């Protein structure tokens, strides 16, 4: 398993559109992907899970990935989150 830390930097945080993009991105990989915020851990492929993280801007998350394509999955998710989900701010 590999893991990486990432901070939510887009204005609206993990709101519905960002969460959808994250779930879509995660679902493209075979690996098991968990997102941990404090004591809570959710399946990154579940929109309900990701939404209930209620991660606003500034929230610090840990992405845990395990599987054959773990490296690519972690890179892609990190780039997505740090790239503000393709939003302007």
């Amino acid at each position, binding site marked *: 398993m*590999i893991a990486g830390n990432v901070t939510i930097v887009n204005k609206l945080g993990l709101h*519905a559109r960002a969460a959808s993009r994250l779930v879509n991105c995660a679902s493209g990989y075979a690996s098991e992907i968990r997102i941990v915020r404090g004591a809570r851990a959710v399946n990154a492929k*579940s929109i*309900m899970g990701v*939404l209930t993280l*209620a991660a606003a801007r500034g929230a610090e998350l840990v992405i845990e990935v395990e599987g054959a394509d773990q490296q690519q999955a972690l890179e892609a998710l990190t*780039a997505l989150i740090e*790239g503000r989900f*393709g939003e302007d701010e």
Partner: protein
Amino acid sequence: MTLALTGHAVGRGIAIGRSHLAEGSELEIGEYRIGADEVDKEIRRYRNAIDAARHQLEELAGRVSRNVGIGAAEIIQTHVLMLSDSRLRDGTEDHIRRELCNAEWALQMQLERMLLEFRSLDDEYIRSRGEDVAQVVRLVQNKLNEEAADKPFENMPDRLADTLVISRELTPGELAILHERGVAGIVTEHGGPTSHTAILAKSLGIPTVMGVRRAQSLLREGEILVLDGGLGVVYADPDEAISNHYLEVQRITRRFKNSLEAIRDLPAVSLDGQRISLQANAERPAELQMARDEGASGIGLYRTEFLYLQGAPPDEETQLAEFAAAIALLGGIPLTIRTLDLGADKSTDYLDFSQLRRCANPALGLRAVRLCLRDTDLFKTQLRAILRASALGPVRCLIPMLTSVQEIRMVHLLLDESREELEERGLDYDREMPVGGMIEVPAAALAIEELGRHLDFISVGTNDLLQYTLAADRVDEQVAHLYDLQHPGVVRLLRHIFREAEALRLPATVCGEAAGDRQYTRLLLALGLKEFSMHPGRLLEVKQVVRETDIPKARAALSHWFNLPPGSPPMSLLQVINESQR
């Protein structure tokens, strides 16, 4: 007697028309036992209902994406994801197996559990996502029980012009359907200002008031209503004073819209005869189409990030296909493709995950061209796709967030390598494709003279440039008041950029939000800007201001403002410039 009902102000605007009460009955969800041998059948029934609901939403999302816009479609896509969610699926199926009960009941129990979880959250916006889950579940319940399903639109007319629909609640999908039928306004009993239905109503510009208690019992079918979406009020049987006031507001709004329509086919020429280029920022097909419809003279900013947000980075062919489709849609107007503007503190093969640390300050970190120059394979793949696209139509390549001449040199080096690679493969490209840079870093803005010599054009990203210049993040409410385009330091910096660009005969565009904000149009013209790039929905509004501006007079007012003696009465720059036009 006027009856005024209040609710959440959701979709701004005035609607006057007759009410139509959408029918809809509370679906009765009962519980019954099933035999252990019926479990598989029940689960199959449940899965079929989920599939049917998903199919319906996907079909709707496709239609909405074409007719309404990508933002609206994305809201519906969120519901599709919820339908596919393992927690909803597994939780319900486990309940069926464990309790030996019908799918409807199991689904309802799972919904209750999930709603509890949403309701326990502190974040109001996220809490209201529980509403989305409930809407999605209601859709599945309707599929499970087709005969008893509530069909709110069964008796709804096909054309809803001058009709205000009064509904108990409304899903985003239902709202999209009402919009397609031309609904004038919406009143709902349930739903809050952060619901997806509210967000969609706002983005579609439908006057909407939500959360109006007992609206369906208090309002009668076919009565005259006045709805003020900005105030969150619905008036039934309005008295003359109220009607007259709102009719006047409607007249003014209509006059403004008509005045925009009147200039749709007229050129963007100022009163003193200067032609101004008004371009659009766009990426999705619907926006590109809108840009053409609104008369954009080009796409000044075509973002490519969306290509990179779907998992693995896109290959050359995928990107080329996307660019080719855009070029075909544009019918000959130029397309300015911005290279990848993502930020990340680490990327691809040199990555060492054990050392992955969060970037201390993402806005000042490894992003945009800085990231691309670290991962040259990723960058060159995109450069080759852009070069190949340049053989298909007028294409310009725009490099985001340049800081130094050294970076531009490296970009040119990589472009040369990419061209050679294409030639080896016998592929065509435009040898004259202009390469420009985004000016967002204050040091780059001050060094246009040096940087500009290596560029064919520049594009000023005012959002980031202002943030960096004022050291204030405009989305941070505590310092947002400092974020001001009229700050003399910002005005001087912009004046410097456009003067230097003119001296170098370097075409300059502004593609930040200021370009589409009509209150700043005259200021930017006074500063010497000749090319604007904005959201396609703003093109007509800005063109109207251009056509009503005498640029030399605005310039004189700007100089006057700079030379105001100390102690003069405070006058805002925009005020001074606007007064020069009288």
